[in-house]
């Protein structure tokens, strides 16, 4: 038995001599929660700004309440991301800790020329995380850090929780670095990233609002789509938990809640050359607001609303699809589904897929089921006329 314990003892003393490499005292860390990248004046340089949480010695858990100095922003201008962090570490007393980073924000002009060169660091190096979310901001990205946020500790956490809540309803608002790079790797599939705008007048408490999506061809941003087309995009993409649409028709106004949108895409070939795409959109909708439509009885009201909704969906969807066809950018994964199910066919379509996509004829047939009309059964109108 003696021998075993000499072995254990030596195992221990060998560790003593060795010292600890990776130990980082916790109060020497600067917790980074957001990174913003913008184009700087000098050619080929980028100014990278980093925001982190300011910690203050406090007895027990009570937080010091004044939010003015709750955030710390560090700025540098360098050629590459890794140099930026090296530079920051050099000039700041605490070492930057990237594991808790939540968001990477890109300025519009950076997104316009090349996004991929900035993402390489987040995927390759060990101490940064690849599932941080991505955002595009109109104008310069570091304005986001200037917003003073009442509720959260700093603006990036505000943004992060904001995206988390809206992405619970519509999946496509949330796109991480890894998703973006995965899309880059798939041929003929381009990604779409939500775009935000910082609210200039700082009297109301909504410092930032979402203005739609930025459309990318591989790693270059080529266009922006507004909120209206965003609904069309979401309808075509499918797999959405809940979104809404208000339609004003000749008889009155009705606003629908689309609860569960599923789209099926079917490509019609002619001697294995895709010419037409049939998109069926299954939606379970529910009426949330109903004004007017006095002259309809209960029975044919249902039919009328069905027509209105289906018509609206066809218009919006075809309009968005046409818009993307002009841009020659397939964001709906049609090429991907061909590649996945008929790899042979995809081989000869591969090189000029963008033109084929642009020349596709589209036919949308929505299947809308209006589930519930809310708690009111009849149509009432303010005049009290039955």
């Amino acid at each position, binding site marked *: 038995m003696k021998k075993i314990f000499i072995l254990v003892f030596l195992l221990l003393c060998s560790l003593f001599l060795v010292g600890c490499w990776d130990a980082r005292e916790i109060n020497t860390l600067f917790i980074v929660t957001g990174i913003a990248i913008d184009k700087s004046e000098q050619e080929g340089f980028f100014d990278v700004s980093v925001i982190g949480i300011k910690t203050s010695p406090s007895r027990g858990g009570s937080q010091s309440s004044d939010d003015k100095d709750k955030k710390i922003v560090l700025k540098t201008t360098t050629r590459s991301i890794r140099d930026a962090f090296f530079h920051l570490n050099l000039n700041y007393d605490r070492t930057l800790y990237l594991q808790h980073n939540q968001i990477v924000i890109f300025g519009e002009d950076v997104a316009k020329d090349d996004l991929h060169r900035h993402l390489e660091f987040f995927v390759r190096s060990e101490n940064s995380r690849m599932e941080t979310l991505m955002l595009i901001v109109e104008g310069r990205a570091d304005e986001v850090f200037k917003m003073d946020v009442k509720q959260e500790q700093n603006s990036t956490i505000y943004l992060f929780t904001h995206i*988390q809540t809206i992405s619970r309803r519509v999946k496509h608002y949330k796109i991480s670095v890894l998703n973006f790079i995965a899309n880059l790797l798939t041929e003929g599939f381009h990604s779409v990233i939500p775009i935000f705008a910082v609210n200039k007048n700082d009297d109301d408490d909504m410092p930032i609002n979402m203005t739609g999506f930025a459309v990318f061809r591989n790693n270059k941003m080529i266009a922006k789509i507004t909120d209206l087309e965003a609904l069309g995009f979401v309808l075509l993409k499918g797999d959405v938990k809940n979104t809404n649409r208000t339609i004003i028709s000749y008889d009155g106004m009705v606003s629908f809640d689309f609860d569960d949108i599923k789209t099926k895409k079917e490509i019609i070939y002619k001697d294995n050359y895709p010419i037409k795409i049939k998109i069926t959109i299954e939606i379970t909708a529910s009426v949330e607001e109903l004004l007017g439509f006095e002259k309809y009885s209960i029975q044919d009201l249902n039919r009328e609303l069905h027509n209105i909704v289906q018509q609206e969906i066809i218009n919006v969807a075809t309009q968005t699809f046409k818009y993307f066809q002009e841009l020659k950018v397939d964001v709906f994964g049609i090429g991907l589904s061909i590649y996945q199910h008929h*790899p042979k066919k995809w081989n000869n379509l591969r090189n000029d897929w963008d033109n084929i996509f642009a020349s596709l004829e589209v036919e949308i047939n929505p299947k809308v089921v209006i589930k519930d009309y809310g708690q009111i059964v009849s149509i009432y109108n303010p005049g009290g006329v039955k």
Partner: protein
Amino acid sequence: MTIAETKISGRQFMYSIICFIQASAILNAFISNITYQESWLVVIFAFIIFIPSVFMYGALINRFKDKNLIQIIIQIFGPVLGRIISVIYLIFFLSITMFNITDLTDITKTSMLPTTPYIILVMMCILITAWAVRSGLRVLTIYSKMYVFLASFIIILSIIFLFNVIEIGNLFPIFSLPLKKYVQGIHILNAIPFGELVVFLLIAPNVQMNKKQTYKYFFLGASIGAFSFFLTVLRDISVLGETFGMFVFPSLVAFRLIRITEAITRIEILFIVILIILLIFKISILYYVTVITVSQIFNLKKYKNIVLSVGFFLMTAAIVLSANSIQHTLAAQNGAPFIWVTLQIIFPFILLLISLIFNIKSPKEESK
């Protein structure tokens, strides 16, 4: 003259086989950048092709009941030629152990301790495994059942946690790559996780099981291990999709994507720690087998005293011989299949043929 007279039960033998394959489930980086999304298909084909050799191993164990691989070689090829072949096998076992040690240190370096120097991790691993090997086979395989439950719990739990990120579409397209890639994929799989079961030919004499049980336990162990390997690869592909081929350790990235509530994120270290325990178990078995071959070649009575010196050689060689991880995976993809498969499957098959033709049996067989 079996060295270790400790007998372990058949079930523990099966559990250590399962554990052995599950431990190498994390190293699926070899086939990832050859057969990108179809690696899960390759795993199925590789196992189907591996089944006959499982029964070949079973037959070899049953023919030479209480003789391990090295003794069989010496008995068939005579002391001089037998010893030369056993030295080749010794080099083969040494390189497998070094292979796995470099993998273990790579994982710990990437996921947990990026700046600790290489030699510390290797030494800690060697010391623990040396202690386990010195205390005998029973201590080595006693926890195999616990490790198996731990590993399968991890696989199932990670699939549940990753449910919202899994895309079934990522598993397609099927059969879109040239045939050559599939053959290479199957060849590699038969060398790395499955072929390494040849190691159990040396442990088999210390296991109490009759003829029928050998086949049953060996096949059951191999199939459950292969199934969990298949599940891991399936999970990684469906989560990572196109980027499956990009990473050195795809499972590590898959674990990173787990995001349940706001608090339970970035918990990939808890999963990795358990896989590290499995890898240490695998290395301790390989280490035990290397020490047994050394003591068999020089027919020593007790193998306890050479454990640490073999460990010293392993430690320093593991550091020197392994360059960076890319060169390491390249060597595994192209070099290993040719060399190892011959030693793992083809050579034992020749042994079986010779022993059938010349009707050589282990002496105890005739006396019974």
